[in-house]
């Protein structure tokens, strides 16, 4: 993009506005139209949930095991540390050896945390 094109005015954003209108309009429109023109037959069997002919037992929206929560939370914690590696990786050559060592120290601290998690048996599912 050249410098002249990069100058922004509100008019340059008009296509985005159109795109929004079209995308939103299509979604809302199809939902409304199918409601209006579709045939409606309401019987008890049809409104029930389909489980390959087997009777439904209980509700599908049950709370699930707390173990999964631990895994998810630990994933969030370790996952977010990656954002410190992106800028480091981009400037890897300029940082030289000391940058490499610093990243190793950072990873070692994370590793210490991970070993602690394993030793505490936080990742065992039963």
């Amino acid at each position, binding site marked *: 993009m050249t410098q002249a094109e990069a100058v922004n005015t509100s008019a340059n954003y008009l296509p985005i506005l159109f795109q929004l209108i079209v995308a939103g309009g299509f979604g809302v429109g199809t939902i409304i139209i199918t409601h209006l023109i579709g045939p409606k037959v309401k019987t008890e069997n049809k409104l029930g949930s389909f489980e390959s002919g087997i009777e439904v037992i209980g509700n599908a929206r049950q709370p699930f095991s707390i173990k999964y929560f631990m895994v998810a939370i630990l994933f969030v914690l370790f996952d977010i540390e990656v954002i410190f590696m992106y800028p480091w990786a981009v400037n890897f050559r300029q940082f030289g050896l000391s940058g490499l060592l610093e990243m190793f120290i950072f990873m070692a*601290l994370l590793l*210490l945390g991970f070993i*602690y998690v394993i*030793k*505490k048996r936080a990742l065992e599912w039963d």
Partner: protein
Amino acid sequence: MSAIITLSLLAVLLLYLGLFKAKKALLPVSLLGLLAAIVLYSIQWDTDAEPLYSGMVLFDHFAVAFSILSLFITGLVFLLSRDYFDSISEHVAEYYALIIFSLTGALLVVSFHNLAMLFIGIEIMSVALYILVGIRKRDFSSNEAALKYFLMGAFSTGFLLFGITLIYGATGSFDLTEIKNYLIANPHSISPLFYSGILLLIIGLSFKVGAAPFHFWTPDVYEGAPILITTFMSTVVKTAAFAGFLRLFLTCFVPLQDFWAPVLLVITVLTLFIGNISALAQQSFKRMLAYSSISHAGYMLFGILSIGAASAGAIFVYSAAYSIASVVAFAVLILVKRSRGSEHFEAFNGLAAKNPYLAFTLSVAMLSLAGIPLTAGFVGKFMMFSGVLANYHIVLLLLAVLNAAMGIYYYFRVIVAMYFRPADREEVTVNANYKAVLFIGALLTIAIGIFPSLLAGWL
């Protein structure tokens, strides 16, 4: 900086000691680590302070003095922890590690030289505390306190961050020196963003120090948390938050004093009255101490209000006196609660007859908190009030003295209960660590009261 690194590694080491079932080693190792950190800080005292790590931290006399105070108080809290943590949780190592993590955050808050470090320090301090407050997992009030503290803490962090962002938008830097230079370079064309930034920072920091009208979480959290954690919060954390508050305003915002002083004045007066009047009505000793800590926040805000060369020294002496007296008061409360199972004033009835030593040290602490002469609390209040008198109207001083008088009433209730209300009770058993802490606390309180220059000469 080496002290902060030592402490973070110490916390990791403690976690691993806990994994390998070395429970006996936890207390000695943590005390040794704290001692090493104090030594490392003391070495730095005489060297010329330069901002380190691209201007992130600055270990000037202010930072070193407050750091040593925080380390010392944490040491006292650890001495009280023998047998205490074992009785409320099986994860003892995590207790020590989290307190040390929180302390590391506090040390960053008192020595920051970049707003990024202020934010990171406050977060490290608070996140560890959220866990500590809720560490009694089955206890409902502990749960409730943890959730309230977490929600309020996260909420106030938002305000703090928005303030920092607006100041960055106005000045283009997070560095304290550059923010100050911006104010000096454009005295008449300061961006309106800067003013909003200061207001939001005041709101965020007032939440953290528990100043009215942002104090409402304080009594509940202090009451619901385990007593030793309350001790840590109301001493080390409060001191660090005030030191950070003062450091920010002292380094950067002095030229704009006419703008923020009226706001802070309203907060100060509200804090004093709400804290003291609510404390009058309390039946529980622990909750009374929580409200009194709000009113002490009010007195310390005077130090920021009358900002100047003397305010750092005044806040330092005041927070030292307040922290030492609080540690003694909470230590006695732990013992009384252990024997009577209650935190109410009635639980102290007749304590003087059976345990004269406990009653005497608690009385010294109460006198110091009330600000009676010959105790450390008096020296702190005196330095604070003389700063106010130099800068402000006499009416403000009268308000402060009126509040001090209210304070005397509720602090004396417990002394009256101990000495003049008879009750048949067992003698409270006191182990050696508690005796030592009570002795150190009472001795220091009286020593500073008689020779103020012991502490006042530091800053």
